């Protein structure tokens, strides 16, 4: 059956994260509040980040999206807590490379459970779904101003 190939994309852990996403909701006190949209499909992701001592102390996301974008957001939020913006920057680059088929040897170490999303590389149409949350955290921790950054993905990314 042709759908057997789907198992490379929809691994059990991905389905679990999508069904029961971690850090889903909002924060009472956020240092960064970012909304990122994927204009090609209308997906919206809102991300809130609380920073303490130069690290991510707490994080929350909300919005609508497909299984892949929701699972990826859930996994991302698990992995970035306690990390510095520099560390997060490296993770985002590693994730982006991984889902476009350039997986480095240290993805498991850098990305933890999120490394399971490597299967997305076989589904080029879904790369944007996977990267939305990672682009959002990148903008959140790298942004200069404190609040309400709105961004969108480029068509050619």
């Amino acid at each position, binding site marked *: 059956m*042709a759908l057997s190939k*789907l198992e490379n994309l*929809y691994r059990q852990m991905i*389905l679990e994260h999508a069904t029961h996403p971690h850090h889903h909701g909002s924060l009472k006190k956020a240092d960064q509040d970012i909304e990122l949209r994927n204009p090609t499909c209308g*997906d919206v992701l809102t991300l809130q980040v609380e920073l303490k001592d130069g690290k991510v102390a707490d994080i929350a996301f909300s919005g609508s999206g497909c*299984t892949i974008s*929701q699972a990826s957001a859930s996994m991302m939020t698990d992995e970035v807590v306690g990390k510095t913006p520099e560390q997060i920057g490296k993770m985002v680059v590693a994730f982006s490379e991984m889902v476009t088929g350039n997986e480095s040897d240290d993805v498991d170490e850098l990305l933890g459970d999120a490394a399971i999303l490597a299967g997305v590389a076989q589904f080029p149409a879904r790369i944007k779904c996977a990267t939305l949350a990672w682009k959002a955290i990148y903008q959140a921790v790298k942004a200069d101003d404190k609040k309400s950054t709105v961004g969108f993905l480029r068509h050619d990314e």
Partner: protein
Amino acid sequence: MGKKMNSYAEDFPILKQKVNDEQLVYLDNAATAQKPRAVIEAITDYYYHDNANVHRGVHTLAERATKDFEDVRSKVAHFINAPSKDEVIYTKGTTEGLNWVAASYGQTHVKAGDEIVISYMEHHSNLVPWQQLAHRTGAKLKYISLQPDGQLDMSSVRQEITDKTAIVALAHASNVLGVVNPLAEISRIAHEHGAIMVADGAQSTPHMKIDVQELGVDFFAFSGHKLMAPTGIGILWGKSELLDEMPPLEFGGEMIDWVQLQETTFKKAPWKFEGGTQNIAGVVGLGAAIDYLEKIGMDNVQKQERAVVQAVLPELQQIEGLTIYGPQDAQKRTGVISFNLDNLHPHDVATALDMEGVAIRAGHHCAQPLMEYLNVPATARASFYLYNTIEDGQRLVEAIKATKEFFKNGTI
């Protein structure tokens, strides 16, 4: 019918391929249609034998290209029953046509306090140009409501169109809901109030006989690529008395009558709107697509599609957890079927169907206000055309069932 059912697919070389090891079933026709061999060959022939710029050469090739270019204009006029070929303007597609009406007619006729009336089912290309025109002129943009089954609410039509209304702009057929709007009746209402009627024919022209005079509209725009012609060519038809008073939007070669240092006079419509070298090969392809469709007959095209929808819709309706948007009666719809599978995002559905070789669209279909109106983030959409068969519809049904089974333990 000229041909037996199922045999049209043979005219479309692209359909003979496997996708993800499965025979391709192309059901994304509302986005763009595939091209028959006759269209592909017409474009090749043009470049092999006739290519030249139009309207400006005295040599033989220029004469031939100009004749091809202008003959298609007559062909289009006949295809939509326009009174005159001079009312047929080449554009790059529906979007450009609608934008031109908004920017040229709209900008010179709409003033602060006027109303522009559209509906909740409009594609962004028949929404944003009017919204921006309203912003520029101080006019008010109003929306006609829909009935629960997705058809236009006629009492809302009568309520929203008033003596202040300058322009009514509506889709002839919806790209999401599969409904056909009663434009003839709405045109009468618009005209009673002194408004003009603009029709977005992108989703109707490929699938049914169009008669702009019977529809009573003032402008009618459509795209070539959805009716088997190449991308980048479309038509804006408008009543000559309106076109005559509209200022051109793009200045340059081809559209001028006489240029002096400080003043220029322009050609008449349609040429005054066609600045610069046009998409001549696209026009040739459009002519070949119209020939192909007219040989079959637009009534037969519609019959063929309706037969497939009538067979497929009941099977889809029986799938538990599948929501179908728009009228549930196959007689009231086109070949566009939008749906959602419970607890599953349409992107996930589209990826799963792609693995089964079935190409559908997932997303907001350039109709974000409609998605909001339906209270869904997005939908999946299967859209049929002449070359699709009942078997193709069954492949869709089976693929949806398999997708449901794959995700049976639930995701989001």
